[in-house]
């Protein structure tokens, strides 16, 4: 049994990526509103609203510095997950875009990979717009700040893979509600708004299993320059999860589309 990842043809994936980028460039004005408006208001809400209540330092940082990684990761990851659930579902089911593409030499794996790298790209573009905001709001204090894009890329791969795999199993658009209910529940556990050390022991374990926790922790390390040994483990964990979910996504799309 061979790995689905080994069947990816990068040139083909790139052609799929370019189809999406072409549509995006046509709609770029509407596409860019969300990543700018959302984080500004999240900063207002959490930085000034919740932040005003938090007078003590959090992990040795002011609350605004602490929450910056959360705002950044939250906005970027949300973008990817929506792109790979509703966005992908629309292309797959309503527009039959996948059908059209699979009538060409492009195979299911390259198609799925092209979609995921597109979702990652969208996340990265958003990131480029949010990072200055993070700096302006005083949440980024380290010279390593630009490196925060790396954990975000892997976060996008893992969530994009997960999203696309789920999409391949969804035959009724309302089923996404279940997935999102679960996904949003986990988002509040991953150390975006408060350190997970505040949670009871068993919940901390749950939190560490959710890969988003690693993404946010690594982002925070880059924004503040406070690196620790645990970040190595988190990077490895994130890498492994990303590859696994990518593989799952490619297999699921083949199963759905080639039957």
């Amino acid at each position, binding site marked *: 049994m061979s790995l689905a990842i080994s069947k990816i043809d990068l*040139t*083909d994936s790139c*052609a*799929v990526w*370019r*189809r999406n980028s*072409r*549509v995006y460039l*046509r709609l770029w004005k509407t596409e860019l509103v969300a990543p700018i408006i959302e984080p500004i208001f999240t900063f207002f809400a959490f930085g000034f609203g919740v932040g005003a209540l938090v007078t003590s330092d959090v992990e040795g940082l002011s609350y605004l510095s602490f929450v910056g990684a959360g705002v950044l990761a939250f906005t970027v990851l949300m973008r990817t997950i929506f792109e790979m659930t509703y966005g992908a579902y629309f292309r797959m089911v309503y*527009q*039959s*875009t996948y*059908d*059209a*593409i*699979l*009538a*060409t*030499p*492009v*195979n299911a794996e390259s198609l799925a990979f092209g979609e995921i790298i597109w979702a990652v790209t969208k996340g990265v573009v958003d990131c480029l717009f949010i990072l200055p905001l993070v700096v302006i709001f005083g949440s980024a204090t380290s010279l390593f700040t630009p490196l925060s894009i790396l954990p975000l890329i892997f976060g996008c791969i893992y969530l994009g893979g997960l999203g696309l795999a789920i999409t391949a199993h969804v035959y009724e658009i309302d089923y996404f509600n279940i997935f999102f209910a679960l996904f949003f529940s986990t988002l509040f556990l991953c150390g975006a708004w408060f350190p997970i050390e505040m949670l009871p022991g068993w919940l901390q374990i749950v939190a560490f299993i959710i890969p988003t926790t690693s993404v946010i922790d690594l982002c925070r390390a880059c924004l503040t320059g406070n690196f620790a040994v645990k970040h190595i483990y988190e990077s490895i964990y994130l890498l492994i999860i990303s590859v696994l979910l990518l593989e799952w996504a490619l297999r699921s799309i083949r199963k759905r*589309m*080639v*039957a």
Partner: protein
Amino acid sequence: MNFAIEAKNLVKRFADIAAVNDISFIVKHGETFAILGENGAGKSTTMRMIACRSPLTTGELSVEGLNVKNADRRIRSLIGVVPQENNLDPDLNVRENLLVYSRYFRIHKEIAQTRCDELLEFIRLKEKANAKVEQLSGGMKRRLIIARALLHRPKILLLDEPTTGLDPNVRQEIWEKLEELRRTENLTIVLSTHYMDEAEKLAQRLIVMAHGRIVVEGVPHEIIKDKVKKFALEIREADSFNLRQTDKILSQKRGSTHLYFAKLPKI
């Protein structure tokens, strides 16, 4: 390689039904081959297997001498597919639909531009090049999909019900284009259809499928001569009458129209 397509004992089973149940046929180079059959007969499933979109349950299938089981990429670069349901990209305009699609075949950008103009000319949609897909009529969409399937100069064109739902003039026009392609480009054409007239007009040979099996095969006008009496009666707006049914005639209701054929076709 002797034949454009060679299918031996093809079977496709979904959970509880055999959509295609042990069919064998060949398609010769440069001919138009029709698959005729009613809803659910297995036409689309057969075409999807040829297009390497649906793995065979059992049987052998080769396209241009290549086995669908291990040469699918190569095969898909040799065929052009016109699916049953329109799947043009609504996010792109007419011209972009062709240009973006040409990338999947790795057609060089400049060649793609020329090819695109050429095809828009061929399907007479040049003035609509910058129109949105949803602004096209059903017939225009169909023509655009046919153009899209021709971008990479395929050897075989697969058309799944190319003219279903179109008016007689548009059907005629599409038939002429297809016949022109077959004659001038020596294209092999495989099409599925519900209509005997379409098969008769275009195909050199045909098979009739029912419940996943081939029930008749041969040359269209001979089949018609053998199996179908020429006399038919069509009564429009016959809502107020009951449909007459006897053993001697085949009667059928389509909307408010009653159709009577002099004899049951033996299929």
